[in-house]
Structure formats: C-alpha cells, structure tokens
C-alpha cells in the first residue's frame, strides 16, 4: 500500500512539471506585455518601466524566466502580489478556507441527496415517481450555477427574506451564533454549486443500484437472514467504485463553478480572488491560483486512487501483486 502510494505520487511528478510549464506558458508567453497593460499605454516613467522590467525579470529569455520561477516555486515562493506586495502564498492561504469549506459542503450535499434519490429510483424503476425524478434531474443538470444563484437569491433572499443575499457573517457574533449564521450564508451557494453534480451522481446511482439489486449476492444475503439494512450495506459496498470515479469528474467542475458562485454571493474565497486578480492584472496571483487549481485536481485524482484501495479489496490485492511483480 505504501509502495503503491509512493509510486503513484512519483508518477504524478511529470504531470506537475507539465502543469507548471503550461501555466507559465499561457500567462507569460502570449503576446501581451504586462507593463504595457499596467501603464495604460505608456504613462509610466522610463525608470519605473525599467524597475518593473527587472522586478518581473522580463529582460531575460523565457527559459531563464521559467527556471528562476520554477526554483522559487520549489521553495514555496510564488512571488508577491502586484496590488499590495503581500506574498502570493499568503494571499491565497487567506482565501482558501472559504473555497474548501464551500466545496466540501457541496460534495456532501451532492452525495447526501443523490445516493438516496438513486436508491429510490432503482427500487421502483419505471414508476411515475422515478420517471418524473429522472426528468427533473436532466432539467437540474441543465441549470447553470449562476442562473440558479440569481433565481434562488431572488426567491429566498429578496422575496421571502429567509436567507441573507450574499456575503459572510461578521466576526463579532458569538460562537454559537456564528455557526448558524455561517450555515445561513453558505446554504444558497452550496445548493447552486451542487446542482449539476446532483443530476450526474443520481443518474449513476440509479444505474449502479439497479444492476446491484438484481445480483445474486443480495438474494443469498437475504436468504441467509441478513436484515434489509445489513444487505443494503453490501449493495453500497458493491457500488462504491463508480461513485469514487465520479468524484474525480465532479471536482474540476466544482472548482470552476465556485469562481462564479463566490462572485455572485460575495464569498471571499479563491474563486473571487481569481476574478479580482484578473481584473487588476495581478499576474503573480493569477499564476498562483491557476497552478493551485490544477494541482488540487491532480491531488483529487490521487485521493480517488487511494479511495479505490480502501473500498475495493480486489483492486487492493491486484495492485499489491503488481507492485511485488515490479520489485
């Protein structure tokens, strides 16, 4: 298991290098001089332009620039924000918890709603409720997160006034009050982000449970006298793998979707930071965030592979055999 992990991490090193190269290439090599953009077409003095040029190492060639940028990156140094001079890593770190919290809540909500929904559909296939549910899911899948956000904001925040329109709770509130306030503020963004994932997971859940419910092991388990609950535990164990694979599909969508959702709901997460940095032409932060999102997706793939090992003993033994063969 440890050998597999080490091998898996090592095998993602070339991808990591590729990610850094692509990020660097997209944001540095396109025919667009950042100084030209910042100076608004030449309002900076010659000394200021020269200073910026040396600060950004623009006088060096692309290869040298990538080398020095990459070396600094290895030390965790992403440079400084062009807006306030803070280290990019610290700027990102202050925004990251919001995005992680939002995405974690969304994943929990997606699976918490979609799996029972799929189980229900699979237990009564072809019924009117099942068909209505499937039509509803296709419709929900097609609702873009920002459209959903506006409709929900209009209904629940403006019309009914049940939930706050946007933003995050004040720091002044008490601890217990803060949790409630936080939940109230995060509810709508989480739902918006979860919408398309719901439809996807519920469809897979329905198909997976349908095939599992028809399998012999379930009849055997029930015949042996296992309770319905214990038996459904076996069903879930047998269908776990596709759900984990789906997680890898969902995460990049969530990462992209939270850019819009955070913007609409004024959450101070990395998605919003990304947009404000793009608008302010704060390239070091944009580079850092682009890199971070790709690395997070890669880490997601890694996590999925590890989860496979945890839930499926067949995969576990298969991989262990492979690693002993290689040794």
């Amino acid at each position, binding site marked *: 298991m440890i050998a597999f992990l080490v091998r898996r991490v090592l095998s993602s090193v070339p991808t990591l290098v590729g990610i850094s190269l*692509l990020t660097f290439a997209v944001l540095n090599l396109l025919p667009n001089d950042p100084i030209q953009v910042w100076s608004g077409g030449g309002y900076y003095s010659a000394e200021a332009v020269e200073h910026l040029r040396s600060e950004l190492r623009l006088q060096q060639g692309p290869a040298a620039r990538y080398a020095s940028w990459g070396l600094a990156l290895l030390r965790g140094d992403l440079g400084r924000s062009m807006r306030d001079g803070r280290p990019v890593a610290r700027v990102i770190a202050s925004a990251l918890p919001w995005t992680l919290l939002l995405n974690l809540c969304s994943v929990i909500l997606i699976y918490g709603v979609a799996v029972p929904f799929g189980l229900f559909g699979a237990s009564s296939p072809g019924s009117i409720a099942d068909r209505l549910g499937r039509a509803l899911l296709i419709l929900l899948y097609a609702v873009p997160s*920002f459209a959903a956000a*506006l409709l929900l904001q209009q209904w629940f925040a403006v019309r009914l006034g049940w939930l706050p329109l946007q933003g995050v709770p004040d720091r002044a509130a008490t601890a217990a009050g803060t949790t409630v306030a936080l939940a109230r503020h995060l509810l709508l963004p989480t739902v918006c982000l979860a919408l398309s994932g719901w439809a996807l997971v519920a469809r897979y859940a329905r198909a997976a449970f349908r095939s599992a419910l028809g399998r012999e092991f379930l009849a055997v388990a029930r015949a042996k006298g296992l309770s319905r609950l214990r038996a459904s535990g076996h069903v879930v164990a047998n269908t776990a793998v596709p759900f984990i694979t789906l997680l890898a599909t969902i995460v*990049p969508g969530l990462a992209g979707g939270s850019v*819009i959702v955070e913007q609409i709901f004024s959450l101070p997460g990395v998605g919003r930071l990304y947009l404000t940095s793009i608008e302010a032409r704060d390239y070091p932060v944009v580079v850092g965030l682009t890199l971070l999102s*790709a690395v997070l997706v890669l880490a997601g793939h890694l996590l999925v592979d590890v989860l496979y090992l945890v839930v499926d003993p067949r995969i576990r033994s298969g991989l262990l055999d492979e690693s002993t063969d290689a040794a």
Partner: protein
Amino acid sequence: MRPESRLAVFVVLATVLAGLLAPVLANDRPILARVEGRLAAPALAELPIVGRLFDDPGARVVDWDAPPASLQTGATRVLLMPPVPYSYRGIHLDEALRPPSRSHLMGTDALGRDLLARVLHGASLSLLVGFGATALALLIGFCLGALAVVRGGLFDLLIVRFVDVVACFPPFVLALAFMAALGRTGVWPMVAGIALSRWTTIARYVRGEILRHRGGALWVSARAAGAGGVRLVVRHLLPLLAAPLAVLASFGVANAIVLESGLSFLGFGVSPPTPSWGSILAEARGSLDAAWWPVFFPSAALVIVLASLCAAAESAAPGESRVSRS
C-alpha cells in the same frame, strides 16, 4: 426515435434558426419598406453573411423610430414589420422594467429594452460560441488523438502526457486564464479559450478508439492497399468514429454554452450592447429586487436549450434507445 428526443432535436434546430434569423424576427426596422420610391429591406441587411445583399444606403439614414404617421406618408412607408417590433439595443427609458404583457411578451429590462428581442439575439451568440468552440475542439482533439496513434512511440507518450496536464485545469479556470493572458475579451478569444479547455476529452476518446483498430483487419488491409497515415485515418477510421463523436460533440456544445454564458456573465464576453444569455443575466442582477422576468426568461432559455442538447445527445448515444429500436 422517442417523442421526447424528437422534441429535443426540434428545440435545438428551432434555436439555431432563431439565432440565425434574429435580426428578422426581432428588429425595430421593417423587413420590407418603401424608401423614396424604392423597395428596401433594412432588417434583412442585419442578417449574418447574406446581409450585405440587402444593404441600402438610402434606408440606413431613415429614422425608423420617428412617429409612425410621418413614416406612412410620402415616399417612405413601412410595409412589413418583424413579428417582434423591437431591437435588442433600442433603449426606451420610459418603458423600463415593464412586466410581461401583450406588447412585450417577456417584459423589458432596466433600460426598457425588449427582453424577447434580447433573448433571441442572445441565442445567436450562444450558439455561435457553442458550435464554434466545439468545432475547434473537435479539430484539435481529433488531429492530436489520431496523430498520437499513427505516429506512436515517444510522440504518443508526449501527447498523452500533455492531455493529462491540460485536463487537470478546470475548464472555466483555464478559459479565464487564457483570456486574461490574451488581455482581450470578445467572441473569438472566448471561442479559443473554451476550445482550449474542451479538446482533451475528444483527444482521449479518439486515441482510445483508434488504438483498438491498430493492427486490426481494417488497419492492415488499408495499409496493404497503400494508404498513408492521413488517408487511413480520414477515409477509413473517421467514418467509424463519426456517430460517437457527434454524441460527444452535442454534450460539448452544451458545455461550451454553459462556459460562454458564465464568461459573459462575468463580463469576459461581448461588449455591452450585444446581448448574450449570460450578459443579460448579469445585467438583471441590478434589478433583482424589482423584477423577476429579466432573470427568469434568459435562464429558462438556457435551461431548455441545454436540456435539449443533452437529451438529443443521449438518445443518439449507443445504448438503450439504439438497442430497443433494432
């Protein structure tokens, strides 16, 4: 074909038509008018591509907003107005935020522009970007995927690795980064940015499918008959892949439309007077507390078109429907 999927295909085709014909369907200029004794078609002149044929310098200077009475007299008279007699850019502040009514079927926005006209015009942009970006992604994905198999070896490894790297970037983030780096917003940067983040799925699929044929009967006999790499792929393998690629492409169009409306929503799309479903929604944020229609109708248009694209793609996918039919 099941009735639902027939409906879905119909909706998609109707939207394409509506997008193409938007200047004729919704315009404050007449389709047919008499200008100084000659027939003119000012609305047709705004059509894409063929519009130039109908361009008439005399009709361009007429103020069609003038009171109808003055237009009906003399040498200039309106003969036929479009079904929606408003332009997507015609600002009428005294008509601002009118709820849906007989004269404005979808109501008006905060600047008094007819929402139906804007949604119709928005369709053309969404579809242009959706189909354009998907076509570009198909081209890149197919060429790289096929090239990887035909060349093989180190080249294959490099392409596979490159696809892995690009696929790590969330599509929305990559498209935004590309447009930020380009320092430009608008339709073509958006098409390029979306295509850049969407071709990897196609490349992976094409590579996997062609790989199955390598060394097979089709491959060997085509090679034996003297077919080169390009001929082998284009003449013999492409027809086999066309149907599944069409399914992938319809999902791709739906995805590209979501990306486009998201980018436009954030202000990275076309510049203001031109509507896109995303930018109409972005403008609707300002009147969130006063009106529901500027949010509801563009959202509904998006949802219906996206759901139809997905349903149409699904019914064409090899699976239940195909099996049950044969």
